[in-house]
């Protein structure tokens, strides 16, 4: 094979990315167009009606946008008290030791569990606990989904922030110790500020994962098409309404679901882009 052919081959393979991504956007936009045209883009975003009575169809994305934002935000809140310590354990306290390797394996395995199995566990183990604690009568809902979602994103947030914590130069830590600081003080006043932007960006990427998580949420959120009025009530996320209704939908409903897919795609793309850019900056500095 000569150099020219080789270059063309590589270039052709690389072309697959723009083609696929362009195709994704094109397909989503064209197929969501009906819904946006029928309801109006802004109206679709802000309407909370979701009824498929023939002749009086009304579709709006607000309940699902709300559901997604609520589950993601709660999952983030529940995840931090565990992902933070894991990151410190692996990246600072027990850096490079066997115990840290064990904990890393634990989080790796957590990251490897398929989401449908998380869903099953949430449904058969966590839901009865929520019911027994009288938190909500039916057990499923935003809270249940967020709890499992939190476990699912711990590995992502923890392993990436551990990487940034590890990168804090030893010079700085020793400098702080030499001034008489305890380890806790070094972590609070040197490690966190220095690794701060990196840690922050790893949580942005964890949010990116939580936003699009489908099966777990579908199995646990309760699948009602209203705006959740509290964290214990049921609802639907953007991903779960698609998973639930895509198979049976046609025409305007199908287009509306694809429109929700487009919104979800844009939100995750934006979040991931912000996260990646921040990570790149944090790595350079």
């Amino acid at each position, binding site marked *: 094979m000569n150099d020219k052919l080789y270059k063309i081959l590589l270039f052709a393979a690389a072309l697959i990315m723009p083609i696929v991504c362009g195709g994704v956007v094109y397909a989503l936009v064209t197929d969501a167009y009906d819904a946006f045209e029928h309801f109006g883009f802004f109206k679709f975003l802000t309407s909370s009606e979701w009824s498929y009575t023939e002749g009086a169809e009304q579709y709006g994305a607000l309940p699902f946008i709300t559901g997604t934002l609520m589950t993601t935000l709660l999952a983030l809140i529940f995840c931090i008290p565990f992902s933070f310590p894991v990151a410190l354990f692996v990246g600072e306290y027990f850096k490079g030791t066997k115990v840290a390797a064990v904990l890393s394996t634990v989080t790796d395995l957590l990251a490897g569990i398929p989401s449908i199995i998380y869903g099953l566990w949430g449904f058969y183990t966590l839901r009865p606990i929520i019911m027994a604690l009288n938190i909500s009568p039916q057990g499923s809902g935003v809270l249940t989904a967020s709890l499992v979602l939190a476990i699912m994103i711990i590995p992502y947030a923890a392993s990436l922030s551990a990487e940034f914590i590890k990168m804090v130069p030893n010079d700085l830590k*020793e*400098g702080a110790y030499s001034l*008489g600081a305890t380890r806790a003080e070094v972590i609070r006043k040197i490690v966190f500020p220095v690794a701060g932007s990196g840690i922050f960006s790893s949580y942005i990427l964890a949010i990116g994962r939580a936003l699009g998580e489908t099966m777990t949420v579908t199995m646990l959120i309760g699948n009602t098409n209203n705006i959740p009025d509290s964290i214990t009530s049921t609802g639907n996320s953007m991903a779960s309404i698609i998973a639930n209704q895509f198979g049976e939908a046609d025409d305007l409903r199908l287009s509306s679901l694809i429109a929700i897919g487009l919104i979800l795609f844009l939100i995750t793309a934006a979040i991931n882009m912000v996260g990646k850019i921040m990570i790149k900056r944090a790595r350079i500095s």
Partner: protein
Amino acid sequence: MESVKPILEFKKTCVSYTKQTMAVKYVSAAIERNTITAIMGPSGCGKSTLLRAVNLMHNLYPNIRVDGEILLNGEDILAMEPIDVRRRVGMVFQRPAPFPTMSIYDNVLSGFALNGIKLSKAEKDATVERCLKSVALWDEVKDVLNKKGTFLSGGQQQRLCIARALAMKPDVLLMDEPTSALDPIATKHIEELLLELQKEVTILIVTHNMGQAKRISSKSMFMYLGELVEYGDTETMFNNPVDERTNAYLTGKMG
């Protein structure tokens, strides 16, 4: 000759990384107050290790052991709380490393912040001015105190690190090859500074630069393979070394 009580005294100090290998072997020496003592020796001779032991830096690394005694004003620091010791013993490292997230002002005061000590605004201002003046940095940075310390030149950064250590009013200042990452002019500045500083603080400096030891120190130690081979007045050591190995090192036959 034991008229003045030594500020720092090593008594059979040993440092070991593993059970078999000792990096510092039975070092005994007394350091006099307000002197500059240079620790010399070929690389790997244990000079930095010995210096770091005075600040209990080995406590940060679980597999390093220190045996024997290190007395600070007659008290064995190996039996003391590390954070207490480190407040009384300052340290300046090879590479200047001001805290990048703090301003110059906050860098000088970082010891207080790290130790959770609250100061009034007036006390802060006074400390910053005093310390930056004593490292001859005040005139250069007094208008940019709120800028990050990382914008300074290497020599300025190192002086900032010295100021940071001085702010805690340490009894002893340990310096681990503080000028090895600096250019000759910055090095000259720091050396002049140290000669000034010995009025306030006792300085122990590890250096691989014999000229530097000769220029600034009154006492010198020569270490080889973990042992303290020779310790005495710098002038005597350079002119009439007692030990064969010291002579070989000083004349460039080893190192």
